[in-house]
């Protein structure tokens, strides 16, 4: 016996597995049909809800915004709000407070959210959002804008003297402490939650039910508190091991030119912003904030790039630089960084005599800064003669680009001067505040108030631009508007940059390309255009959802940045036919040459036939660091530069379960105590009288066998 014992090595895992198995046996839970799947006790009590996108905490120099379910997880009885009455009812002394409200999207208004936040009867909100087929709900007046009335008005020297976003409620920048708002994007999970509510919580006449009630627990505990300076201060305490519980927001700007920049060449910057924001950050799609602008700008780059490649466009006297700024929704991270680098002689690259570099650029090189900001929603949305407004800081002075656009005729597009006196929120502000002599022109679809009624919300989706069930086609008004805008800008740029054009030909903007770009950014990323311009290894990341355009933290590279870079390179660059594999193309990029880049793309090659697996595009497209200078300078209180950072969190999850009335458990306690008391009595008495009760054996001597 002892030998066999020695040969068995105690195996902790087998004991654990054995324990789990045997305890499941003793749960007496196996019927014939269930012989093969035994749920655990945890699974009988809790159901995990998957597919969650959460509202989480962001911090800046002075405040914290967003949601945090702390100090302990947020939980409450489920309540389904289908009508405004349901909301009033739950705010007015409901019986089983507190609650988690399942909100119908029609009721997702700033007032409702704020009322529920302030009420002690509501601890959190969940709602359904279908990422693959999002639809805009029937909101009151068709308006839901949780953005600020004057976005990015926190930095010093930024112009903000009117409510550009007239419908703005500022919900995105409010603090929701001890509150959680989750979007459930998985249809099955959401139906489970609703079913649990229907089965247990819906009382008579749609009123309140009785125990047992279905409850939910939301976990979203944010580690950073109060503000960015606080976050970094706490990192200095030894108990945190010196790691701050927040990470700065940021990513990379994408910029590129058609031709190599010459020394002391003047540049014309054509800019738009790459990121967007929303109350649930990962549901930021921003169709008119700024996908319409991105698509237009890419269409212009494509038109000019084609002219370059077919020999029509030989050179431009002034360089045309296309820039896509990232992080602009959070106090102009990308554009402020570019200005900062320009002023410190670090743009585009820090001087290194051992490398081939483009010339250093400064604000004085910029002859015009043209920005596209909100170009997708006309006042009369189905017009085929769009009107755009020019906001400029050179009022009264003559500027060639401004005058060219104002004077365009017979193309069924009109550019008007804005009636406002100041610049709207735009990346151009970062250039304007440092040097008022940099001529800035912002092209927008609005004059003094945003046309975008869903600005800053997760419903700023393609439907917000299209307004109807009409599919996208070259005859759709939106496509006609954007095509005309791109064409006007392309011809204006050629004129103003003193381009050398052969045969007096004009640029052609491809409507099909505009349609494809809108489809790729706003409908699903698994589209043929993306499949062509991305490398084969990136194709796995493409899916059936629109592109999420929140800037995220600066340690994560967003897909959107890479996709836009590849698009710009593809449109403005030249295919190098001598390189036909991905690896060879990669190798062409050398550290010592920072003038051009080689980008390998899948192309439309028939991969099975040749040994060729990539096309190699040589272009003047670059990335530029888009992290706020405040973090480089460690000035976390900065009012000059963005100090936005995202809080760390250890888990974001949700589960539903039933709760019963408290007396049930008290009853069991009383039963247990009674049982204990009785058994103590009986045992004590038995023990005392043992020798008499068991007299037969107690009085016989032991037999030793």
């Amino acid at each position, binding site marked *: *016996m002892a030998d066999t014992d020695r040969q*068995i090595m*105690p*195996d902790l895992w*087998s*004991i654990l*597995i*054995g*324990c789990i*198995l*045997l*305890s499941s*046996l*003793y*749960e*007496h*839970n*196996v*019927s014939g049909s269930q*012989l*093969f799947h*035994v749920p655990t*006790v945890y*699974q*009988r*009590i*809790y159901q995990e809800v998957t597919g969650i996108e959460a509202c989480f905490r962001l911090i800046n120099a002075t405040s914290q915004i967003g949601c945090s379910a702390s100090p302990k997880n947020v*939980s409450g009885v489920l309540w389904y709000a289908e009508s405004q009455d349901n909301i009033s009812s739950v705010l007015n002394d409901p019986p089983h407070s507190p609650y988690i409200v399942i909100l119908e999207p029609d009721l997702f208004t700033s007032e409702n959210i704020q009322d529920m936040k302030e009420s002690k009867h509501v601890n959190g909100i969940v709602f359904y959002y279908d990422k693959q087929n999002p639809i805009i709900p029937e909101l009151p007046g068709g308006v839901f804008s949780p953005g600020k009335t004057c976005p990015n008005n926190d930095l010093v020297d930024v112009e903000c003297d009117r409510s550009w976003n007239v419908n703005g409620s500022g919900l995105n920048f409010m603090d929701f402490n001890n509150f959680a708002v989750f979007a459930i994007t998985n249809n099955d999970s959401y139906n489970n939650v609703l079913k649990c509510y229907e*089965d247990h919580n819906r009382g008579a006449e749609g009123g309140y039910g009785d125990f*047992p009630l279905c409850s939910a*627990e939301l976990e979203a505990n944010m580690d950073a508190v109060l503000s960015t300076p606080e976050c970094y201060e706490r990192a200095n305490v030894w108990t945190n091991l010196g790691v701050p519980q927040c990470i700065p927001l940021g990513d990379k700007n994408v910029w590129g030119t058609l031709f190599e920049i010459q020394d002391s060449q003047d540049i014309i910057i054509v800019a738009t912003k790459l990121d967007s924001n929303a109350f649930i950050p990962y549901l930021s799609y921003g169709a008119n904030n700024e996908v319409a602008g991105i698509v237009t700008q890419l269409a212009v780059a494509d038109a000019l790039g084609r002219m370059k490649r077919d020999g029509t466009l030989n050179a431009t006297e002034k360089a045309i630089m296309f820039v896509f700024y990232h992080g602009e929704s959070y106090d102009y991270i990308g554009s402020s960084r570019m200005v900062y680098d320009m002023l410190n002689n670090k743009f585009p690259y820090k001087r290194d005599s051992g490398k081939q570099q483009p010339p250093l650029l400064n604000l004085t090189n910029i002859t015009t800064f043209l920005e596209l900001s909100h170009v997708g929603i006309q006042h009369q949305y189905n017009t085929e003669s769009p009107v755009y407004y020019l906001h400029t800081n050179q009022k009264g002075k003559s500027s060639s680009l401004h005058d060219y656009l104002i004077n365009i005729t017979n193309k069924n597009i009109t550019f008007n001067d804005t009636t406002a006196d100041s610049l709207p929120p735009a990346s151009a502000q970062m250039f304007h505040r440092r040097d008022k002599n940099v001529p800035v022109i912002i092209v927008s679809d609005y004059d003094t108030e945003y046309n975008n009624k869903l600005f800053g919300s997760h419903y700023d989706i393609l439907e917000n631009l299209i307004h109807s069930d009409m599919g996208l086609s070259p005859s759709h008004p939106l496509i006609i508007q954007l095509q005309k805008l791109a064409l006007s800008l392309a011809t204006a740029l050629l004129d103003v940059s003193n381009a050398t054009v052969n045969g007096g030909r004009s640029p052609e903007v491809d409507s099909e390309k505009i349609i494809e770009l809108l489809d790729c950014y706003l409908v699903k990323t698994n589209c043929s255009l993306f499949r062509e311009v991305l490398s084969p290894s990136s194709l796995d990341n493409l899916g059936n959802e629109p592109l999420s355009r929140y800037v995220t933290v600066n340690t994560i590279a967003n897909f959107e940045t890479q996709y836009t870079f590849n698009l710009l390179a593809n449109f403005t660059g030249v295919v190098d036919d001598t390189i036909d594999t991905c690896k060879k193309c990669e190798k062409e990029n050398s550290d010592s040459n920072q003038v051009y880049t080689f980008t390998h793309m899948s192309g439309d090659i028939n991969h099975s036939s040749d040994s060729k697996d990539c096309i190699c595009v040589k272009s003047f497209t670059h990335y530029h660091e888009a992290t706020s200078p405040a973090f480089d300078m460690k000035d976390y209180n900065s009012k000059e530069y963005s100090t936005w950072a995202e809080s760390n969190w250890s888990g974001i999850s949700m589960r539903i*379960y*039933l*709760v019963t009335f*408290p007396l049930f*458990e*008290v009853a*069991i*306690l009383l039963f*247990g*105590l009674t*049982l*204990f008391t009785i*058994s*103590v009595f009986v045992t004590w008495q*038995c*023990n005392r*009288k043992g020798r*008499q*009760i*068991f007299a*037969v*054996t*107690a*009085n*016989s*001597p*032991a*037999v*030793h066998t």
Partner: protein
Amino acid sequence: SYISTKMTVLAGFSYSLVAYAIPTALFFLTVARQPHEVIVMILGAFFWLLSLLIVAIIWIIVVPLRSTPAFTLPISVILQELCRWLYFRLVKKGDKLLEVVSDDTSQLRHHKIAYVGGLGFGLIAGIVSFANVVEVATGPGVVGVRGSEDSQYFVLSSAFGAQVIILLNICWGVLWFDGWEKRNWILIVLVPVSHMLISGLSLLNNSYCPAYFLTAAYILLIILATLSLFTAGARPKTLKYFFTF
């Protein structure tokens, strides 16, 4: 009114009371004062864990049958009884020493030791089978989110199940030791057969109606407890001493 959350830690404690109240009382009042009996009891617990270890190893080796509790259960019963037998052999070897330490030369000592061994076996079996259920029950939720598949009394019936298994193990201990001591083949066969039968019965239940298992187990308990008392030396006429001062 967030009483529910805090109450559920109390709920965990309450369920533990239901399952472990009787054996805890038994331990503190009849075993704890005698150190040698405590040691014997813990040794019993160890032998039960040994059986669990061997079952686990078999379960890992025989991969295709991992998802069939119907296979593992008979093996587990057989191994428990085997380890109970090994335990008996070990205790018998230490019999002379136990006699000296306990200062008791009567036959009752053998039965007391058997009872203590059964208590050890039973307690560890009860802890292993029920402890994780208690741990989950201390959370805010109660059983029932899956609808009609689970009864709200799931945890409570698990508690009773653990309790009855512990008490049955005490009876099995007494009967098994006496059977092997006196070569009483009726008792030697009775213990594993009744164990196998009652465990098999648990397989045929679903969680919504554990009534079959619990009823049968308690009836078996009454029968075996009577038999154990008789074996240990109690007779109908000596029972009256329980009610005296």
